[in-house]
């Protein structure tokens, strides 16, 4: 990499992409104006407001012309609202009272919006448009940039404090070259969006606060870095990498395999059945992790067997003849469920979560297994079930017994706790397979809360301590003849995926957007070579050294 560390701002890269483009900053919503008496005359305030409304109307009209289609209709309706006599009359009432233009606009639009909300239905929904117009007019009065997602009219790198779901809903992803956030970590909404859509992103870049609109930057997710004002050389390198990645994305979809033909099935991580079709299109050979929490998170009580069966059946129908691994409800820690565990815990990540919570609420587990068995009977998919957060052999035996009682033939466990990695040999004598969850395995190995930004530096799956535990599980899989999958974020990092295979993983599961990169990387090495790279990484002393060792070994193999 020619990108020098001195000139780079560091953050956490999401995915393997690299992008080059001009910065457009997301402006925060203006602070609500306070009720103040103006020092200007009524006439002067009136003129200021009219000018601001005209400027906003002109801006929205122009954006509409550029956007065309339905977006133009919406923006033109906003222009009409900005100039609507009902609103301008209400503004005038406040101006006559001697208020500032800012306050008059803020108060008048809010009054009209509230009237609309009271009417409900279609008109009620327009209230949000009015608040948006009001925020734009207030910003114009103050000479601030328009709030919300920027639309400079050309492709840009979006730089934001952090992105809320409402912001990203308005984002035209075709215009976004990359995302950079000042706050937020690898589990932030921005990171999830980027991973899901395959957008190049670097999150948590504190120094990005100093970037301005129009700055040309390189966003290098693969190296977790941002480079301001790149040199000619760096730009050429970026262009070459973008071309190389485009070729990888366009490569024919083949089943996952190493250069020597060793099959490494590439599976999808899914959180709802709705994304199944997209995963199939991107070449997923099945599902390696289906999270079932979406069925439970929105409810006060557990969903019925019938509701669950429908969702599972919808998923399984998308994968006829393919393997689908469903994880039993994984509640607790970051996703508490009142009907499973309502106790206040000092350390929820070390508390009653995962399988522990299910075993104290056997009905919930039995209902879920019944629904899964019914869905399997109605479809042709090869259903495997696994328990989350298993830490002992006894828990493995109990879960396998429950699953088999319900007629589910393949029952495995997630390896997320160091104890189960160390006992993998014994666990795999009972379990039909193991699936390594690298996010939690890293959190528990490093004793670093994965949701806590202050210890995010320790949350690195390249850490040799984590890799050694993976090696234990891989070796146990080989000696017992049982499959060992990886379904954490680590499997989506192409070079780390090679290391995991070298350590004994027999399948990899990831966000579907990552499949093409991993597929291409695996094809570059034989199993012997993957093992050599893995061995170099495991022998390192630190996470950074493990990455370097894997890189230099892979480079020297490529040059042989």
């Amino acid at each position, binding site marked *: 990499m020619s990108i020098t560390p001195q000139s780079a701002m560091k953050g956490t890269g999401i995915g393997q992409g690299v992008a080059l483009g001009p910065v457009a900053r997301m402006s925060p919503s203006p602070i609500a104006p306070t009720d103040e008496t103006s020092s200007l005359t009524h006439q002067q305030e009136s003129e200021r407001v009219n000018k601001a409304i005209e400027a906003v109307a002109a801006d929205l009209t122009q954006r509409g012309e550029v956007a065309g289609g339905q977006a133009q209709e919406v923006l033109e309706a906003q222009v009409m609202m900005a100039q609507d006599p*009902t609103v301008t009359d209400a503004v005038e009432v406040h101006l006559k009272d001697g208020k500032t233009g800012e306050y008059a606009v803020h108060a008048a639009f809010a009054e009209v919006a509230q*009237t609309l909300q009271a009417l409900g239905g*279609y008109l009620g929904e327009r209230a949000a448009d009015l608040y948006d117009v009001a925020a734009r007019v207030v910003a114009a009065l103050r000479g601030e940039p328009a709030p919300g997602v920027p639309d400079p009219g050309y492709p840009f790198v979006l730089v934001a404090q952090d992105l809320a779901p409402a912001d990203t809903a308005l984002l035209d992803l075709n215009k976004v070259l990359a995302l950079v956030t000042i706050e937020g970590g690898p589990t932030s909404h921005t990171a999830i969006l980027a991973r899901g859509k395959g957008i190049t992103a670097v999150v948590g870049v504190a120094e990005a606060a100093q970037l301005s609109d129009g700055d040309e930057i390189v966003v290098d997710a693969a190296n977790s870095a941002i480079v301001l004002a790149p040199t000619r050389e760096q730009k050429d390198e970026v262009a070459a990498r973008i071309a190389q990645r485009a070729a990888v994305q366009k490569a024919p979809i083949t089943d996952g395999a190493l250069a020597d033909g060793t099959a490494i099935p590439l599976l999808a991580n899914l959180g709802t059945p709705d994304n199944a079709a997209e995963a199939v299109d991107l070449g997923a050979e099945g599902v390696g992790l289906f999270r079932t929490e979406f069925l439970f998170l929105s409810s006060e009580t557990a969903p019925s067997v019938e509701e669950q069966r429908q969702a599972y059946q919808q998923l399984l129908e998308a994968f006829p003849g393919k393997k689908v691994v469903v994880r039993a409800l994984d509640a607790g820690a970051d996703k508490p469920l009142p009907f499973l565990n309502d106790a206040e815990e000092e350390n929820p990540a070390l508390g009653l979560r995962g399988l522990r919570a299910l075993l104290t609420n056997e009905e919930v587990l039995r209902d879920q297994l019944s629904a899964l068995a019914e869905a399997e009977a109605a479809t042709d998919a090869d259903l495997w079930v696994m328990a989350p957060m298993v830490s002992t052999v006894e828990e493995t035996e109990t879960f396998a017994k429950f699953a088999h009682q319900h007629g589910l033939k393949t029952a495995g466990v997630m390896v997320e706790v160091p104890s189960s990695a160390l006992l993998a040999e014994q666990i795999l004598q009972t379990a039909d397979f193991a699936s390594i969850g690298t996010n939690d395995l890293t959190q528990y190995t490093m004793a670093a809360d994965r949701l806590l930004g202050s210890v995010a530096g320790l949350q690195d799956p390249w850490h040799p301590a984590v890799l050694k535990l993976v090696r234990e599980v891989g070796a146990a899989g080989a000696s017992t003849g049982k499959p060992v999958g990886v379904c954490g974020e680590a499997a989506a990092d192409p070079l780390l995926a090679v290391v995991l295979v070298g350590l004994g993983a027999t399948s990899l599961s990831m966000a579907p957007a990552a499949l093409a990169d991993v597929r291409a990387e695996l094809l570059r090495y034989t199993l012997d070579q993957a093992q050599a790279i893995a061995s170099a990484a495991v022998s390192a002393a630190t996470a950074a050294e493990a990455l370097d060792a894997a890189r230099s070994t892979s480079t020297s193999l490529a040059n042989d």
Partner: protein
Amino acid sequence: MSATRTVTVGSSQGLHARPAKLFVEAAQNTGLPVTIAKGEKSVNAASILGVMSLGVDKGDEVTLTAEGEGAESALDTLEAFLKTDHDEA
């Protein structure tokens, strides 16, 4: 000079969303002060928020009033607009 007439709305979406916007544009283009009333409630026809708040549906009767030179011909235009179905586009 002032003119008034009552019209039955022909647009299948009434005066919501897109037809409301087109009607308000047509009313503004007459260059005259125009009001539109449904039942007791009368609003400025140049206000999209006012027009939408009437909640006019297909088959409703509305009363248009225009003031000034050319009021009759302005109402001819608006009447023709209201009788047409604008939702095919």
